[in-house]
């Protein structure tokens, strides 16, 4: 396997982990600079390909999938803690259960 991540579309500013990656791991991406994973990240999760400013669109499959609520550096994990849907809020067990 050539890379730990997959770039789904040339316009994407995130990449998807093809396997679990470890903090500090150098990751090569076809057609752009290497990134360093800043945290341990599970298979199927996303890493920032570039610096992503707050309020910028997250692009995956060449299409917007939400907006950054905080800025992220290249190699940062991109998920619910720093991005949100532009359509409707996601729910987790924390917001549906009795205890937060």
């Amino acid at each position, binding site marked *: *396997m*050539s890379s730990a991540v*997959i770039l*789904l579309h040339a316009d994407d500013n995130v990449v*998807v*982990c*093809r*396997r679990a990656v470890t903090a500090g791991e150098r990751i090569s991406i076809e057609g752009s600079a290497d990134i360093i994973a800043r945290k341990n990240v*599970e*298979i*199927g*999760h*996303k890493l920032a390909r570039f610096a992503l400013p707050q309020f910028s669109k*997250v692009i*995956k*499959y060449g*299409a*917007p*999938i*939400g907006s950054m609520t905080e800025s992220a550096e290249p190699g940062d994990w*991109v*998920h*619910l803690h720093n*991005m*949100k*849907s*532009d*359509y*409707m*809020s*996601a*729910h*987790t*067990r924390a917001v*549906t259960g009795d205890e937060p």
Partner: protein
Amino acid sequence: MIANGYLRNDGRKGIRNVLIVTYLVECAHHVARRIVEMSGDSQVHLVGFPGCYPNDYALRMMKALATHPNVGGVVLLSLGCEGFNREDLAKHVAGSGRGIDTVVIQQSGGTRSAIEHGLAAVRRIKAQMDGAVVRTPFYFSDLVVGTICGGSDGTSGITANPAVGRAFDRLVTAGATCIFEETGEMIGCEGPMGERATSPEIAAAIRASIAKAETYYRAMGFGSFAPGNAEGGLSSQEEKSAGAYVKSGHMPIVGVIKPAEIPPSPGLYLLDIVPDGAPKFGFPNISDNAEIVELMACGAHVTLFTTGRGSVVGSAIAPVIKVTGNPDTFRRMSEDMDINAGRVLEGLADLDQVADEIVELIKITATGAETKSEELGHREFILTYKTFEPSAPSCFPRSAQLR
């Protein structure tokens, strides 16, 4: 020819020959379940509707399911005082040429005697079914395949779902009927989806179904997005939608149907699963099996179920083929998974190879071979309240409108 089918009077063909024991209110559930258990026959399946209040959708669904081509006989279990129109359902089934009997628990003398009567009815109808069976060549043009995803994660949209999309392309090209649904998980995809419609009316119906889904889910307060989706790396409804949409493949969309409407001719259809009118009975489909039941009510012989996190469900009436996109899930739950599309992530297969494998497994399943969930005895079924208006004629292919 891909298999030997079971010919029904309406000309449709099944790939299974099951008898369904159907409870018409929760109060008859125990009796129905005991009949199925005591029959000791893996081709006797339990289905039912729990509510006491009548519902046109539930009646239409039950009529469609009881006359599904995989079903050869029906035993209805009624408590006696519920709202379900058992006479109407029984008449419809009898009109289809199938063996049918109704056991009314209050008339039969209670639990023990209703079980006895029901069991006798099952044995009698099963013997008739086996005696009168007509086997006939089953072609791709006879085949209806549905797809859903459940327990999606960040791998689903890049492995299992596009592989199913390519399998759909192959099946439609071979003359089969394919149905995709989950309009609540296609929010944000209505533009490109509309461009695949074969008429402006169908394009408008596609866009309207997605707009309806967005309104409905907004009223419910939640999108179709479960905690496990987030744990698996999906961060938003639109990210999940983009991944779910690719299950539909690349073929033109020839029609938009609603639950219990049978596609009139082969091709790719969108099933609009969100109820019409003001939100009334809660979430459109409360769990994955509700979607499988609707696909079956549209005639699906088999359902392709893509999963990342790892669902284990199967279904009564029609086999479920589970395709996991996550190689870790496949290793952890290999007994439950029919196909490992996660090999794509590991560079061990490409999407076309997985698509070929899916089509091959459908053909084998059509010959009677059991899928993993069938082997494990999964026969889930759920049907709840909904409201639908019939689809406009313009939602169907033009060739069908001329008939």
